[in-house]
């Protein structure tokens, strides 16, 4: 059983950042704006967050510090995503190109700034990880679930689930969510009944910026001891999760768990006795995530649920 708990705990390292970032991208795309810039936004969020962790090291308790860092990452993510919003909403630029530009800008900016602001003038932002929770009081004693989710965990896992709950509720059960979705499907129709399309699209992109920034920090903190101007392509993977999840929150949850589980098995099978004893070549485990993705996409892509109007700049005059 301990192997199962271990796999679930490890899976969260992969799944939670993917979940958060994919939900962010979902808000942007459901409002009609393609957001390819998630990679860059993650990077900026991770950069700002780790820089904060570094400079406030030892001045406050671990969890408080992490929560503040998450807020800072979110704010920086928002500011960065506003560039994308301005280009694609006000300037009606090609959204893929605008996103690509931000992706190219982010790592360069992070390296440049890290070298300038850090006293030792290096590009790596080193931080001390004091955030792991060995066991959550009370909840950690629950059999099975306690072992899976409430031991060796990070507070970010729970934040991820809270974000999921809020995002689902806001998208389907609020007036805001309905209007946002309408803008992604048929902005002219939404406009004709008095919805401010530009404002909705700005809201979508801003939410994606906040969640992308948070996702970046959540990605880096448990998996390294420094931030080296990269999030290893997880922003793109999150967009794949979004498509895999058909732009729907609960499906995105499953998609991110699926990716996370596959990646965990591929990475850690050598420490799992049952899998080692099977004697299957390691290449098999390494290719499973990709083969499984291909197969699933073959069966689901026919009924793609992509927002109808996404990627098309909204033009008030067009009918």
């Amino acid at each position: 059983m301990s192997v199962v708990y271990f796999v679930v705990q490890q899976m969260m390292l992969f799944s939670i950042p993917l979940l958060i970032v994919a939900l962010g991208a979902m808000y942007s795309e459901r409002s009609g704006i393609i957001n390819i810039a998630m990679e860059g936004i993650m990077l900026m969020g991770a950069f700002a967050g780790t820089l904060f962790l570094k400079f406030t090291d030892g001045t406050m308790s671990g969890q408080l510090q992490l929560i503040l860092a998450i807020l800072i990452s979110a704010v920086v993510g928002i500011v960065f995503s506003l560039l994308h919003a301005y280009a694609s909403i006000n300037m009606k630029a090609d959204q893929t190109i605008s996103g690509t530009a931000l992706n190219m800008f982010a790592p360069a900016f992070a390296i440049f700034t890290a070298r300038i602001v850090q006293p030792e003038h290096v590009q790596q932002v080193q931080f001390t990880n004091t955030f792991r929770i060995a066991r959550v009081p009370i909840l950690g004693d629950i059999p099975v679930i306690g072992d899976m989710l409430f031991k060796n965990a990070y507070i970010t896992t729970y934040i991820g689930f809270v974000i999921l709950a809020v995002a689902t509720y806001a998208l389907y059960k609020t007036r805001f969510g309905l209007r946002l979705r309408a803008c992604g499907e048929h902005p002219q129709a939404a406009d004709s009944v008095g919805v401010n399309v530009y404002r909705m699209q700005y809201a979508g992109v801003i939410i994606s910026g906040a969640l992308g920034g948070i996702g970046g920090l959540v990605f880096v903190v448990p998996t390294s001891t420094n931030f080296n101007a990269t999030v290893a392509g997880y922003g793109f993977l999150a967009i794949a999760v979004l498509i895999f999840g058909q732009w729907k929150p609960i499906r995105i949850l499953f998609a991110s768990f699926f990716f996370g589980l596959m990646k965990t098995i591929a990475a850690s099978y050598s420490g799992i006795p049952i899998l080692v004893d099977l004697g299957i070549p390691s290449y098999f485990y390494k290719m499973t995530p990709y083969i499984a993705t291909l197969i699933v996409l073959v069966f689901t892509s026919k009924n793609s649920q992509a927002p109808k109007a996404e990627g098309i700049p909204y033009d008030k005059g067009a009918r």
Partner: protein
Amino acid sequence: MKRNRLTSVLAAALATTMAFTACGSSNSNSGNDSSKSNDTTTSADSKNEESADGYEVALVTDIGTIDDKSFNQGAWEGVEKYGEEKGVSYKYYKPVEKTTVAYEDTMKLAIEGGAKVVVCPGYLFEQAVYDLQTEYPDTKFILIDGEPNDGSGTYKTAENTLPILFEEDQAGFLAGYAAVYDGYTKLGFMGGLALPAVMRYGYGYIQGADYACEELGIDSVELKYNYTGTFTASPEVASAAAAWYQSGTEVIFGCGGGIGNSIMSAAEDANAVMIGVDVDQSSESDSVVTSAMKLLSNAVYDGVKSYFEDEFKGGETVTYDASVDGVGLPMDSSKFKKFDEKTYEDIYAKVKSGEVKIDNDVTKEVTGIETKHVKVVVVE
């Protein structure tokens, strides 16, 4: 329409990743220039304004940065040390991409910028040095971790070239010996790619562990051996290391740039320890029990110094090993329980005198390394 969208997203993602890598490096270049290098070069420059026409000592990085906590940094420290001590002007150059052509262009740029000695850290420069050593016979080349060749098996070291190799296997040996001596019986080795330097570290590590077993009469040491296939930190590496720790591995020798950081992170989570590589990595994490070091900066310093003192001995490969204190463990910052300074000196003396023989033949697979007591489990 639907399918088009998917492909366009994927295509854009791909294009971005590519643009990304290209831009990342060229931009970080400007980052370098504006911060660290300028500070140091100008300060060195001002010391000997009159004599200097350009920068006399040049370091060309292999795409990495001079603060990569590894190769480029070690070499740069040697250059910097000599430059500051003797008031010689120095500068580093960063090629735009990781190709022999780009290396050659950058080296030419350095030579035109006045470089009399060009330091090339890494085996990636082998071909570039091979080409330029005849083209620029008046310039001295110091090549770390490689020997000039044309890429298809023709080796030639000209009089103006000094190749420096390290006996990484000795550093790995010391680390493996120390780990077993300190009471660890379940060891791990994670290398980046199966490159000669990485392999020598690994092979030495295995034999060091085996030697300690022999001495102490232990017979149940297990060693997991793996090449991760990458030199960057990623959740994959962290997760793999976490899985090893979870299944009983007590110490992992992390041998390959950024993957060390992911192993440190996993070690911290598991309250376990790891062994750093190349330079003393103890400042990066409390989980670093020791580091298998090669004293790169000493080698570069000596090489540069020999030129300015008219003692440059080109044409032949120099090997830095224990006999010239070219490799070692940082005992001051190591966190051993039983393996103390005296034991270290004893085993170091044995390595130095050649009393212990280390098999560092990288044409062999790891399975070809003979062990008497250590059970090596190769993880593919």
